[in-house]
């Protein structure tokens, strides 16, 4: 009994001690605090930046754009750099939560892909630089169904073999936007008639769906539980590694593109280092290293020589010429968000 008591107390003391010690302790000249998805930035790049600029880099993690927003609007301070998605950049700018760093004046800006400069959420790139670019589509197991997969009918009016074997992402926008595209209606739609039609379409289609699952979007396809599944393209490529018969679709009705961006947060304690980081990540060598790790697509030119071969040829990462262009969907007005919420709740009640 005595032994256990002592162990407990020691553990407590050590634990608290470490907790306190963890707060301080900076050896390098500068600091950079990055707020990012977990495992989205390779350690090698962190080390490289850290050594190159004598900066101690710390990384913290969030799981969704919304968590980032909630924390920033609540007033969380202390981070220099974050990696929000496209629509979230628009919101953060509107809410005045970002530092206008003018990346367009940085030396490495010359590497930017031209079509990503005048993007709707940050036209002219005054705040953000692209981190990774991707698309959200679905994959089909061609061993189960070998017909035409480049249509949203696979999701909303599936052939019999695919019925009951479809996984959707548990994300209101990914599901509703796909439905709107299938119906040929615009995004951020507040037309009541069209939304009623969408509501009916989803309710009918749900009968044929197996599940709504984002966390296991890859696993559900790989294990064969689902033969069709909405998925992000980089994920899709990894799924294909494990199940060769999976094929990524580029539906003719259109699809969503997304882009994570490096932004500097308002009041960043290490503003200069943050700017250096933005510039650093626009270097094609670094962007390529990131892309090799994260397996989506870089937003700068000149990465090809450094990319892994399978990335430059992967069907998932290279949009075919005959496919529509990816659509970056802006954040919808409040009224539309409420209507979408209602449809979503109704679908999943």
């Amino acid at each position: 009994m005595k032994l256990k008591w002592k162990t407990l107390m020691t553990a407590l003391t050590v634990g608290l001690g470490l907790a306190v010690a963890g707060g301080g302790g900076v050896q390098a000249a500068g600091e950079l605090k990055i707020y990012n998805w977990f495992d989205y930035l390779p350690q090698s790049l962190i080390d490289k930046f850290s050594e190159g600029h004598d900066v101690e880099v710390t990384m913290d993690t969030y799981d969704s754009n919304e968590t980032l927003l909630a924390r920033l609007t609540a007033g969380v301070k202390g981070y220099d750099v974050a990696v929000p998605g496209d629509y979230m950049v628009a919101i953060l700018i509107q809410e005045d939560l970002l530092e206008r760093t003018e990346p367009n004046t940085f030396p490495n800006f010359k590497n930017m892909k031209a079509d990503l400069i005048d993007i709707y959420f940050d036209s002219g790139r005054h705040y953000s630089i692209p981190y990774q670019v991707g698309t959200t589509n679905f994959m089909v197991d061609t061993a189960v169904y070998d017909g035409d997969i480049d249509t949203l009918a696979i999701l909303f009016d599936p052939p019999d073999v695919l019925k009951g074997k479809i996984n959707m992402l548990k994300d209101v926008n990914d599901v509703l936007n796909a439905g709107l595209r299938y119906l040929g209606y615009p995004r951020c739609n507040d037309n009541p008639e069209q939304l009623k039609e969408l509501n009916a379409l989803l309710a009918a289609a749900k009968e044929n769906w197996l599940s709504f699952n984002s966390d296991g979007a890859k696993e559900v396809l790989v294990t064969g539980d689902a033969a069709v599944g909405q998925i992000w393209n980089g994920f899709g490529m990894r799924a294909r590694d494990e199940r060769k018969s999976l094929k990524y679709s580029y539906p003719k009705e259109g699809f969503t593109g997304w882009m994570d961006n490096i932004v500097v947060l308002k009041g960043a304690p290490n503003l200069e280092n943050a700017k250096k980081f933005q510039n650093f990540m626009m270097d094609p060598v670094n962007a390529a290293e990131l892309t090799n790790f994260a397996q989506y697509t870089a937003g700068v030119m000149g990465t090809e020589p450094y990319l892994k071969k399978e990335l430059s040829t992967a069907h998932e990462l290279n949009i075919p010429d005959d496919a529509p262009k990816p659509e970056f969907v802006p954040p919808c007005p409040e009224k539309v968000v409420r209507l979408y919420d209602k449809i979503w709740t109704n679908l999943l009640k």
Partner: protein
Amino acid sequence: MEKSSGRTAGGIGRGRALLLTPAMLTILVFMVAPLCFVGVYSFLTPGTYGGVVWEFSTEAYIQFLFERDFLDETLVFTSSYLSIYGRSIGQALVATLACLAIGFPTAYFMATRPEHQRNVWVFLVTVPYWVNLLIRTVSMLFIIRDEGPLNAVLQAAGIIDEPIRIAYTDFAIGLGLVYSYLPFMVLPIYAAIERFDFRLVEAAYDLYAGRWTILRKVILPITLPGIVAGSLLVFVPSLGSFIAPDLLGGGKHLMIGNLVALQFQGSRNWPFGSAAAVILMTLVLIALMVLIWLKNRNRVEGR
């Protein structure tokens, strides 16, 4: 007992107040104070990108029962949220009962092991929980899927001829919830049975009670505090859980947890999220009151 009879509730002594203070203060400061925000939020107007606008509104509560028509904005009764709450409560109840059915015998078995083995059993029950729930649930899905190990084992054993569908069913949700919260049932019951005086069993046996009568009439009532504690610890988190329903059940239905989380994230309607939470709190509070009432009634009858 002479000393406990006929006493009326009185003031609390200084010593006991002192013992209660740290826990109460911690909860008051870091829980009740923050929760006041939630209560207030539920009567405000949602901000565009999350947060609230400081304008009084009961819209959040109205929205719970009524929806505005797509076309003419008239209020129409909607069962969407009621059915979400109904399903969540139903699933939580089933999960609690299932946990009790598995947890009680397990706790009993643990508590009747030789003394020096018991701590090991306590640890054994909690060891799996050192691994993140998400990973565990993904693995569970892997096990129960159509071509998974479970079906393979059952087939090999000749119990079934072809794979049965377990994953993506309501059964899987129940399994997931049971799996998620089983220790929360086992441990409190174990703590209660562990100090149970088994001479009482001998006494009851002596009085011509059968094994199962003893269980029902002697062991269960005496270990009731543990059972009640365990049931609460399973029921309440089950009510708010969504990982198991999403992954194992296919996530085709929203749970209360999803609903609330959605309001604070994608839908950015903090007042409605707060209102949904306040309603959930009220439900749990009612359940708690019923439990306390039952407990008191039992006590009175026991005299």
